[in-house]
């Protein structure tokens, strides 16, 4: 039962002249907002989360959902949200749980950064007829290349040929610098995972498995899946590790830095229990720390043990939440044999997080990328390790700016879900997602058509990729490699000196 101690957040209205009492809204709404009584649809607006499923599915466009303006006494400090949270917590004595990313109005630095374009002297490049190199390799790069000269006989002549002596560590080959972030099976439905897997395969990129193990249905796409090892070690065995394209150790997550994961027992269905390798209905608890990691040295040991398990054939990434000390932590990771550092900013989404963490812990991804890139350069290791940025990447400009600030590639999470139908209603943790994305209820999961979902996600990645090519051309650059860490292509607008210094960029006009 949804608590109704506070006024309904949304107002749900049916145009009675248009409504033909088909009852579609009753079926579509998994929250129980609608009930049919004789010749009338009765509305329970306090259950509505503005997921818009009913609005979109109503055959007569008869439904409107709008913000319910309840008359709270105005107060700049004691906002309606603050008061609602207190009422909810005073009723239950519990930690407030929420979904999606940080919902507070912190500055979005991506929107205060503008990009450069060429004009007369250094001409722009036309990406419609010139090749644009977006291919990105994620993984360890050698400090230097060593060659040996081998004498070969060609047409009776002895010719000295240079051969590469340096052993190159395994890398992931991306056709676009956009990957899909780790969202576990359990938090997300199988259809959502399948749709994303098909899309990344088509686009020549990768998706994360999340910490829920790997469902059999995803095996055909495993060479495009990065398997995750989190503190709960769910579904982790040697087959799982060797099956994927790379392995990611999850230390932290942008939406809830410093805390673990917790999939409640009621979401652990037979299928989910199979991939996680735990009994059905059992809580799946990923504790805050990995209990074999209490130092950077311990982390290095886990990195190496994963490499040993896969005989050094798979790159190993380490994901951390963007926190105050992110640069030092990333530097430790860079020296631990890890192939890439993944930084997840505080806008990163989640299926469930305590609201207080989601909204108040961590730092913006823009600052984190700049700090990590800068520090790794200072330490002389930036060229050896890749940086993947995630958490609130909303469009191709964000991707472009993230790379110019110093990332090699980005992960998108919420954006891929929105492509599949998600309306960011933030109720993923209830498992009742009406769009069939963040749910395990079969009748809801079936609403997400795998082929259509895959098409939409692939279209999104392709569209952004095209836009990135255009942006590169405008900047007079023809390879994404030349954009990486190229902060001279960025200018701040309306940022103060401290912010500019943290981002390592100049203000517009300079």
């Amino acid at each position, binding site marked *: 039962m*949804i*608590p*109704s*101690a*506070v*006024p*309904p*957040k949304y107002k749900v209205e049916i145009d009675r002249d248009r409504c033909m009492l088909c009852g579609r809204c009753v079926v579509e709404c998994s929250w129980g907002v609608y009930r049919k009584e004789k010749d009338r649809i009765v509305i329970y607006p*306090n*259950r509505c*989360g503005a997921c818009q499923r009913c609005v979109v599915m109503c055959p007569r466009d008869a439904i409107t959902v709008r913000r319910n303006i309840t008359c709270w006494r105005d107060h700049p400090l004691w906002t309606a949200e603050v008061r*609602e*949270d207190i009422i*909810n*917590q005073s*009723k*239950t004595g*519990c*930690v*407030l*749980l*929420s979904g999606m990313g940080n919902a507070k109005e912190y500055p979005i630095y991506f929107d205060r950064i503008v990009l450069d374009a060429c004009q007369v002297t250094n001409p722009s490049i036309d990406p419609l007829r010139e090749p644009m190199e977006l291919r990105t390799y994620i993984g360890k790069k050698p400090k230097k290349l060593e060659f040996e000269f081998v004498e070969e006989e060609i047409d009776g002549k002895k010719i000295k040929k240079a051969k590469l002596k340096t052993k190159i560590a395994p890398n992931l080959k991306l056709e676009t610098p956009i990957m899909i972030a780790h969202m576990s099976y359990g938090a997300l439905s199988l259809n959502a995972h399948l749709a994303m897997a098909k899309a990344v395969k088509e686009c020549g990129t990768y998706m994360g498995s999340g910490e829920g193990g790997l469902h059999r249905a995803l095996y055909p796409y495993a060479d495009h899946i990065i398997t995750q090892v989190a*503190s*709960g*070690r769910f579904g*982790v*065995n*040697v087959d799982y*590790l*060797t099956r994927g394209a790379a392995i990611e150790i999850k230390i932290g997550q942008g939406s809830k830095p410093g805390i673990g994961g*917790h999939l*409640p*027992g009621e979401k652990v269905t037979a299928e989910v*229990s199979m991939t996680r*390798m*735990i*009994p059905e*209905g*059992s*809580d799946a*608890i990923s*504790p805050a720390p990995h*209990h*074999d990691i209490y130092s950077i040295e311990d982390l290095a*040991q886990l990195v*190496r*043990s994963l490499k*040993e*398990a*896969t*005989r*050094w054939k798979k790159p190993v990434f380490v994901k951390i939440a963007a926190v105050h000390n992110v640069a030092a932590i990333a530097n430790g990771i860079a020296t631990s044999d890890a192939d890439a550092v993944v930084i997840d900013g505080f806008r990163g989404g989640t299926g469930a997080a*305590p*609201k207080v963490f989601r909204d108040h812990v961590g730092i913006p991804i823009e600052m984190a990328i700049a700090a990590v890139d800068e520090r790794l350069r200072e330490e002389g290791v930036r060229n050896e390790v890749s940086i993947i940025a995630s958490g609130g990447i909303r469009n191709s400009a964000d991707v472009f700016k993230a790379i110019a600030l110093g990332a090699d590639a980005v992960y998108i999470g919420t954006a891929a879900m929105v492509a599949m139908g998600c309306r960011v209603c*933030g*109720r993923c*943790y*209830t498992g009742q997602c009406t769009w069939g994305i963040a749910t395990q209820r079969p009748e809801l999961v079936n609403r997400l058509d795998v082929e259509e979902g895959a098409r939409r996600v692939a279209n999104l990645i392709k569209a952004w990729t095209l836009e990135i090519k255009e942006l590169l051309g405008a900047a007079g650059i023809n390879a994404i490699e030349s954009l990486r860490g190229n902060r001279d292509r960025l200018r701040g607008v309306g940022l103060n000196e401290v912010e500019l210094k943290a981002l390592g960029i100049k203000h517009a006009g300079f």
Partner: protein
Amino acid sequence: MENDEVVVIDAKDMNYRELNEKIHEVLDKNPKVKKILLKNVLGQRYIGNGLQKKDLTIEIYGVPGGDLGMFMSGPTIIVYGNTEHAPGNTMDDGKIIIHGSGGDVTGHSMRGGKIFVRDDVGYRSGIHMKEYKDKFPVLVIGGRAKDFLGEYMAGGMILVLNIDKEGKDLGKIKGRMIGTGIHGGSIYIRGEIEEFQLGVAADIKEFTEKDREKIKGYIEEFCSYFNLNEDIREKLINSEYTKIAPVSKRPFGKLYTHDLR
């Protein structure tokens, strides 16, 4: 005696990668190998990591380094010495027999197979062990465990026998925070445990004859590996144990409320 089925590797001065690659090479070249003897092992990590050969035994003379048998699925490892931390880390199946003590986090996230430790184990042993269908991990400790035994345990069984090398009683177990966050599986400790020694979510349950039946086979197996005589075996089987199990399957179920209105 070396033959097709037994291979000896001298690990003296070998780097861990060299040693582990050597083991892989031996197995790749000769699938008939049944036993690998590792001599002069001194701190090399990840021995047996991810190995999947069921009929393989690795005997280790010396002290292996951390993460012994991590992700291992099938083989048996016998250690004639102590081990560093996390033997059997995320182990899937197989056996690890340690003729000495295990380090911290022995059996971390173990999801199947068995570990027998003759003497003691360090802190946080058996942490996050979990079970699934026929996968039932078992950790048997001959001596005692340090604090946080079976923390976040989600399945399987931990058995603490509390005896010294001669089979004599070691006295009262002093470990604290036993089974913090436990939400599955059970811990059996020979002797009495006080309530204050338990962690959050752990509970003392009645030790029944059914429980005795459950642990009997593992005690016998333990005694056979470490050559303990019949008297000791009978004593262990007939002793009183404290059974520690979760308060509930959902220890943190009531911690959260939905941010709905």
